[in-house]
């Protein structure tokens, strides 16, 4: 099953790039759904099916991931996007081609950095840990480089996907339980953000996160 695992990992890396490269929010949401499904499939692909039916916890985690990350959250996000009526990311801080270039760089850097890690035992694939790191970095990059709050939520989801990949790839003993806890957090968070967007949109007629600082105690001059 090793080749299948590596195909999935490569596909996840590809979704990273397509998400960073697209300006349409719906495209991003579809991509994050695909990534969620791939993340959900990863534990199943890793399992040794010849040794019998996998443990219940693996089935539970993977099916929960499939349902929540692959269907529920993307559906919620799509619902919010439709209701709020925002279609595109306009004027991101970092342009799309530049973003793709940076993501390539980050991915390469992840391979470089993770080679320092001493994670030889129990690793599912040579590219698993670097791929997880690349996904984490891409998620953070999306949070920083994009203006729309929805894109930032997507970046956050991607970041979480990276953590999940990391957990799966080094076969943490309690990784699944932890993963379930994080999943619950994410779900609540996206839910709350969805509700918040409605209200922010109602009040401010936009959901640009970089303008939310008007709400804070922005420092005035001369204090």
């Amino acid at each position, binding site marked *: 099953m090793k080749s299948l695992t590596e195909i999935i990992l490569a596909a996840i890396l590809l979704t990273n790039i397509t998400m960073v490269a697209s300006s349409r929010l719906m495209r991003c949401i579809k991509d994050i759904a695909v990534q969620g499904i791939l993340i959900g499939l990863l534990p199943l692909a890793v399992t040794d099916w010849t040794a019998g039916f996998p443990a219940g916890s693996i089935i539970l985690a993977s099916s929960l991931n499939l349902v929540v990350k692959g269907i529920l959250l993307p559906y919620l996000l799509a619902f919010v996007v439709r209701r709020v009526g925002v279609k595109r990311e306009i004027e991101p*801080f970092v342009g799309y081609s530049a973003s793709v270039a940076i993501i390539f760089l980050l991915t390469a850097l992840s391979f470089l*950095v993770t080679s*320092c*890690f001493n994670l030889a035992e129990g690793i599912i694939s040579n590219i698993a840990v670097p791929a997880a790191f690349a996904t984490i970095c891409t998620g*953070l990059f999306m*949070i*920083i*480089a994009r203006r729309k709050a929805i894109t930032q939520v997507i970046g956050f989801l991607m970041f979480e996907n990276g953590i999940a990949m990391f957990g799966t790839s080094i076969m943490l003993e309690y990784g699944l339980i932890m993963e379930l806890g994080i999943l619950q957090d994410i779900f609540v968070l996206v839910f709350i953000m969805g509700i918040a967007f409605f209200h922010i949109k109602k009040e401010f007629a936009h959901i640009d*996160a*970089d303008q*939310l*600082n008007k709400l*804070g105690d*922005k*420092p005035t001059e001369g*204090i």
Partner: protein
Amino acid sequence: MTAIPILILFSGSLASLIFKPRYSAIFGCISACVGSVAALVFYIIKDGSLIFSYTNNFLEIFFMIPIALLGIVAAINSIGYLKGHSAVHVKTYWFFFNLMLASMFSVLVLNAPVHFLLAWEAMGITSAALVAFNFRTKESTRATWIYLIACHAGAVFLILMFIARTAVAPNWTVIFILALLGFGLKCGFMGLHVWLPEAHPAAPSPVSAIMSGAMINLGFFGILKFGINSVSPAAAGWTFLLLGIAGALLGIMFAMTQSNIKRLLAFSSIENMGIIAIGMGLGFLGLSRDLPLIASFAFTGAVLHIINHALLKGCLFLCAGAVLKATGSLDMDEMGGLMKRMPQTGTLFALNGIGISGIPPLNGFMGEFFIYMAALMGLVSGGSIALGSVGAAVSLAFAGGLAVATFSKAAGATFLGEPRSEIAATASEVSPIMVLSSASLFVLSVCLSFIAPLVLYKVGAFFDMSLFSNAFFNIFIAYTSFLIITVTVLLLRFQLLPRSKDNIPGMTWDCGYAKPAARMAYTGTAFTQPLTNLFSPLLQPIRNLIKPAGLFPGPASVQLEVSDGGVRFLWAPIFDRISSFARKIHPAQSGRLHAYILAMVVATILMLAWGLLAGQDQPDPENDNHQPPVIQYSNGD
């Protein structure tokens, strides 16, 4: 059993929050009184041995006494003090008052570092809430901030101290210095005292009484319990002695120059903490040189002075509260002539002023007398201890003299002469409950002076008893006879000088003027002006002088103000530096969400890189022979 008083206080604080204001005052007062009495009963009598017998927790029991006594009296006094305040004020006051007492008792009974720190912080926060009683005024907010900052800075040092104690090979010098800083911030050593003159005027007077009389003592409690067993007696002795001399002299000098009556009392508290520190310093010096006589006299003096100061200063603050209640002001230069309008408060204030200045026959004298005795004995024993004794004796005498000047100024400017303002002229005596509660403290302090020799006897029991088996008895006889003679002389004076029937009531200070006015009388500032001039190199007074000029001079005036030297020359420059530095790095706070996230990511990546690079050449931590940290603390003795 130890939890019962604290539980009583907790339930009282909750009850005073729940019920209507009228009942909340009743609940709050009753629970504060019952809780304090329960503390006295459970903590002191529980051991089957009365006060001052040597038990494992001598320190705790000893510091419990001022808290419980002042807690009862201040709670009763608060009923009068709070009349006329709004429901919100009354409810929050009783809530935090009970919590403050509970946290103070907890500080005493909790031993483990974490519990102790929690109680210590709770004590700071609840008392800060009480300092913020008049939270709508600017001064109160400022005072609360200063107090909170002082509390938390102290807690930082304490946390560091407790961490340092858990080290495998603790550095005891560092621990002692940290304890001095952390606890010294509470007990107002010179330089760390800045919150006292700010917080005390802002707090309601019963709370000032507790804070000044009982809470700042707990700084000594902390040092003795956690810090002192870490250094040699000689080092501790010299540290205490020098800190005490600085505190006593500078404290009373600044007190002398204040015109706000509660600020004056706060500075006087710094002086008294200095005297206590001098006593302890001499005691430790005596211990280090193996001179039990000096040690026991000095420790007795310190112990007595803690209690004396608690009672006398508590009463003085309650009197100041009565003056505030009657006039609405704390500025002594606005008062005058209050003796005719509130004779009971005035008399109490004057008597307590005499007591705290260390004038015989009141008990304030007894504490200082024992320290003098120790200093004199140190003088003849030679060596370095003689040097310390000279310093102690001279500075004690000096501080005592200035204290007399300070309190004659305070009593004179406030109560004597003619009223200098409308508010003073229309003042009237406060409610009997306030007068009686403060009077009870004075009566207690007089009674206490009779058991002073007993204290010497008990403290001496820590050392070699045979040295002065009769000393305490002689002192008792001498003291009692002295008191009897004083009282007899006073009675004789009243009997032998019969009051003439044809007394003509006239104006005060009618020194031959045709039409004397209050403006001709000395103000408090004018009274101490010569002394202020004498010490102006130390005090750096700010003088605003408008001289009369020309042939037909216009109005002329002179103002003399002495602000706290600790703030002006130590802390204000430091905080100015910090704020100018902060202003320089302020632009980094752009208010942009993305920039913040970027900063966090960069920091995380840097930490990761650091961890990777540092982890390569470090041995596996599991292979190190780390012993589990051993937490050491002693049940102070």
